[in-house]
């Protein structure tokens, strides 16, 4: 796959670094270690520089995303409405810190600066769903919904495959 991504860019030109990182992340969902090494070689700069850039920008991630991505809004309005507690509750419930993915790869927990839905603060966004005026109490129930979905037998897919 990398060859098709790389061939759009002139080799040994460090100005292509960020664009390459973006394309690789687009293709893999994250930046795998082997790909960063390949980029360093292709662009002709030390791996440490590539790693430095990849960790500097929030848009890049070095671990694959979980199946469900939970984003806790930490904007001002949500902060006033105790979003810190929501985050702590999620961290406890999932057993991971913000920025990490659960071991079963089911959830990735992230924070965002502001989702832009301040009127329903505090807000948590999971995949395409938005949970407004969320309370700590509701959290296990919401997470269970996604866990149950995962546990469902995948009958539909098998049928459609035939």
């Amino acid at each position, binding site marked *: 796959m990398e060859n098709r991504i790389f061939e759009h860019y002139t080799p040994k030109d460090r100005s292509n670094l960020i664009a390459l990182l973006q394309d690789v992340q687009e293709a893999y969902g994250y930046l795998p*270690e082997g790909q*960063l*090494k390949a980029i360093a070689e292709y662009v002709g*700069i*030390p*791996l*440490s*520089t*590539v*790693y*430095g850039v990849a*960790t*500097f920008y929030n848009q890049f991630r*070095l671990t694959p995303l979980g199946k469900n991505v939970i984003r806790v809004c930490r904007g001002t309005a949500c902060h006033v409405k105790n979003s810190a507690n929501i985050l702590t509750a999620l961290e406890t419930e999932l057993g991971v810190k913000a920025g990490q993915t659960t071991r079963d790869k089911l959830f990735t927990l992230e924070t965002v600066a502001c989702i832009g839905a301040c009127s329903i603060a505090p807000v948590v966004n999971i995949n395409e769903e938005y949970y407004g005026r969320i309370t700590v109490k509701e959290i296990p129930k919401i997470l269970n919904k996604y866990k149950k979905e995962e546990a469902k037998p995948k009958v539909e897919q098998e049928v459609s495959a035939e």
Partner: protein
Amino acid sequence: MIEMTINNIKVKAEEGMTILDAAKSVGIHIPTLCHMKDLFPTGACRICVVEVEGMRGLTPSCAYPVMEGMKVDTNSVRVRTARKTIVELLVENHPQDCLVCVRNKNCELQDLAERYNLREHRFVGEKKDHAIDVSSASMERDPAKCILCGRCVRTCGDIQKIGAIDFTNRGFKSNVTTPFNKGLNVSDCILCGQCILVCPTAALREKSHSKDVMNAIRDKKKYVVAQIAPAVRASIGEEYNLPLGTNATGQLVTGLRRLGFKKVFDTNFAADLTIIEEATELINRVTKAGDLPMFTSCCPGWVKYIEQNRPQLLKHVSSCKSPHEMEGAVLKTYYAKKMGINPKDIYVVSVMPCTVKKFESSRPELSEEHMADVDAVLTTRELVRMFKMAGIDFNDLPEDEFDNPLGESTGAAAIFGTSGGVMEAALRTAYAKISGKELENVEFQEVRGMDGIKSATIPINGLDVNIAVVNGIGNIGSILDEIERGESKYHFIEVMACPGGCINGGGQPIHSKPEKLKKRVQTLYDIDSKMKTRKSHENESVQKLYREFFGEPNGHVAHEILHTHYCDRKKILEHS
């Protein structure tokens, strides 16, 4: 010329000069942290800010050029407050364990805290928390002590062209580290230690062997001997406020004896031995259509570099062990036999200007039946600490001589410690071996000096020998590319990883006096020029060693004991 005033002092400065340099020219000190002479300013640390009349904010003097009529104040209340705040913020995000720190009393952050009169903790809060990286055999990285000045990053990337470490993450989480925050042992690092020399704090330091050495000395069953590299004698005096370039060989020998070493030998002896082996190997390669050019193998940083980056060219590297490894090998074979000592009881300590030598001494290729040629390596700095602890007042030490037979050396060996020295020493012997005549003028000015690449053509008996000297690993790239393209005209190439050679090794005293390197080099050339014998093949002890033990240079016994092999580390790194 530009006329301006700094602190109301009239200053004539050259166009293009920075405010920092202009101030220095009239004796005004401006503190710096990220600033590096000869490199493009980054203006990152802001400790050098000054007030320029007519400008709204404070100006970083390291990155701002002088202008006609400029009025600069380096000591206004605003400047002092800003600088003090910067120091306070750095100090509060620092472990502050000065009393138990290896850089205590030799730390730029400590100096600044004193200079700006820090007397209270105004910004107590969360501190960064990073683990110490002790993965490598030579160095430790302690990011909790890092103040993010970036001098190591620039030394590694811009000067050495390695780029093993860089800034990662940002804001409070900023950290200078290796890719994926893995150990230095699996990074591109060659352990040259140039980063240690520029680190303002103890964030980068050598891995100490001094405890092992002290324990060995106390062990009555062990026969503990020391050897000293050429470059150490020219630099150690700096730690005792002796004039730059003092040759402290005699005091070093006495000091080591007082520490408890049974014998004190000279690595220079093995440097002469190295030249005999290396010159013979070169002549064999030239006359028997071997792989050319041949590279020197004295510098373990260079060897590690080529193993990691161009293993396909390893056949070009001389198979000779480096001098201190040869000295160790001879001690545990010839010397042990001669003295009737069990070689397993001999504990060889090398005092080196180098950090990579620690890694080198741990290489499995450099041990025989689980017995390493060299058991421990002390840097110049570690030895100074051991002298201090043992109550040895270096300045008052009488001079003493090395033990023999591994203490005799020629002028050729002394110059091993500077860039071009190995080449010059090899040429003196190769000339005699090829032509059967002795050189009258043994000094090769072409290979001396601080240029990055020095090259020359030396006519020997009708044969034009093309040689090159690579001074600093950052200059190696084009030379290796030429060889890969099959276009190299050279026969013999010396490579030293540290700019200037071993005199500027990563284990040397940490000082920022710019003239120190030239003085250390001069000391080595002076030792050479004052010697009665200046060619390695004239070393009588080495001649005797061949007669009694090795037979022929490059012969069977010599190959077993004095030569080594290398490994493809690129493969290892790719899978780690």
